[in-house]
């Protein structure tokens, strides 16, 4: 839970920074009150935004964050993990993807889902397994209303592990579908 809290803080800080920079660059004479800026609420999914009372909109036009230039993790997108030799989605993975779907629908951004495997097994089968994992994620996101054209898939198999070592923990970390900037 601590991790999730930190990520939320991180998301808010990033958006605040973008708003401030965007406003200044726009030559806006009035210093915006970023903390109460209503665009924060409209551009973030409801459940990841700290509950704040909405004041009357004083700065209605501020450039939206450039999601396409951001790492999906920085706007709240989470990776999903798979069982050994499996490419079906667990209920936990579906929960993460439901949240991801809401964010992606709102942001309208294109993401790349890369499939990964643990080191066990052959290079070729793992590339195919990674593809199936990424494809399962895409199909689920599309079923939740995300535009199919906004989700690209690729597979790296066992080539780009997130954790090194031949332990159950490392293997579990490496059996994933990872969201990245295309």
């Amino acid at each position, binding site marked *: 839970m601590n991790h999730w809290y930190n990520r939320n803080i991180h998301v808010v800080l990033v958006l605040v920074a973008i708003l401030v920079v965007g406003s200044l660059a726009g030559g806006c004479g009035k210093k915006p009150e970023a903390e109460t800026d209503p665009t924060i609420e409209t551009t973030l999914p409801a459940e990841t935004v700290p509950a704040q009372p909405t004041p009357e909109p004083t700065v209605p036009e501020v450039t939206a964050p450039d999601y396409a230039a951001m790492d999906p993790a920085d706007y709240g997108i989470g990776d999903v993990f798979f069982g050994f*030799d499996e490419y079906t989605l667990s209920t936990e993975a579906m929960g993460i993807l439901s949240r991801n779907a809401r964010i992606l629908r709102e942001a309208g951004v294109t993401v790349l889902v890369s499939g990964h495997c643990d080191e*066990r*097994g*052959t*290079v*070729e*089968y793992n*590339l*195919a*397994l990674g*593809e*199936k994992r990424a*494809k399962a994620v895409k199909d689920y996101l599309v079923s939740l209303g995300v535009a199919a054209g906004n989700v690209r*898939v*690729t*597979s*790296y198999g066992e*080539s*780009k592990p997130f954790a090194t070592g*031949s332990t159950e923990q490392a293997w579990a970390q490496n059996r994933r579908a990872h969201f990245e900037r295309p």
Partner: protein
Amino acid sequence: MTPMTRLVPMILLVLAAVPAAAQRSSEVVIDHTKVAWEKTPILVGLPDVLSGGMPAVQAADLLQAVVLNDLKLSGLFLPALRDVQGDSLNYQYAIEGTVEGALRDAGQTGEDAPTTVSLNLVTWPERQLLLNKRYRPLPSQLRTSAHHFADQVIEMLTGEPGICLTRIAFSRGAGDRRDLWVVDFDGEGLMRLTGNRTLNLCPAWSPDGTTIAFTSYRDGRQGLYGLDTSNGKVRSIIELEGLNLGADWHPSGKELVLSLSHSGNPEIYRIKPDGTIVKRLTVSDAIEISPSWSPGGRDIVFTSDRTGTPQLYIFDGDGAGRRRLTFEGRYNDSAVWSPNGERIAYATREGNHTQIVVMKATGESRRVLTDGTWRNAEDPSWAPDGRHLVFASDRTGVFNLYVCDVDEGTIRRLTSGNDPDITPAWSR
């Protein structure tokens, strides 16, 4: 100099070091079937140096060492240095020769000066001439001349073509940067073929050796490419959405079979070398990958996990007559058909590791080549002699390539280094 441009002179050197008149002899002096314990003893003499000073002396040393090592690695001979063994009567054959160095006043110096090499195969101790070959190699071409002569000896005495001029292409690197490399069958001549800072995997030699098809992310997504081995140039073969993976050339060289997933699922397809799809061979929700043609070009062995675990299947080139080949083990993949069609090698999972298996193409006589001391052993590829098999293993902690003499059961290390070497492919 980039790797691409360096490839060009290397290939040309290989061609120049083989005499134009070189052609396979159809005459077989002794007609016998080799079994593992039946090797031909042969003496390998040091070629006489007629002129040329130290460069010629060193050339003679190198020729003797390379020919001796080639005959040993073939698995068919018991070679011995003649100066060590003396004139033993145990030997039926001997190799002799001469080396003449370049004349300095010919205006040629150092690396530019070819030596004149003459190598003979004779009966022993009668010294009846069976084979003579003459070469004019530059110093950098001496190994190739020796390999060529060793191949001639092997073919004449066994009736089987040698593999001394073959090479192994493979993928070397870590993480998302792996390049194609190539190495001679004896572990020498290591050379990098690609340098595009992405993943380059799964090379496959065309039957005539002019093209290496491989899977690469060089354009930001996975595609199948062809590398021209005469000039190092790379062209796109097919780049569809998803996998473009695991190609194998038809023995005619006019088609490839591979796995594509643009339909939404990895399926087996036949394509032409220009990327045109000839035929889709599988339709299912399962993973279908890793196809390999039978040497006659009629059947295909491939992997499917339609039963829930990856297993080997065979069907014909039209996808008809599918039958399951493996029933043992919960994970079988990477099947490759031996050049004479009698055997299939593949990778199987035992516990948390992968091992190499060889069996008859009928599925009988299954034999695991690598035991538990090998950690993982993956991606087998046959040598053209159907006797040797290259594979990747991380037994030292990092993946390197190893060569197994399948008939003898012996294994030698081919590459070393700190970057993993994977997906080897033996040239035809």
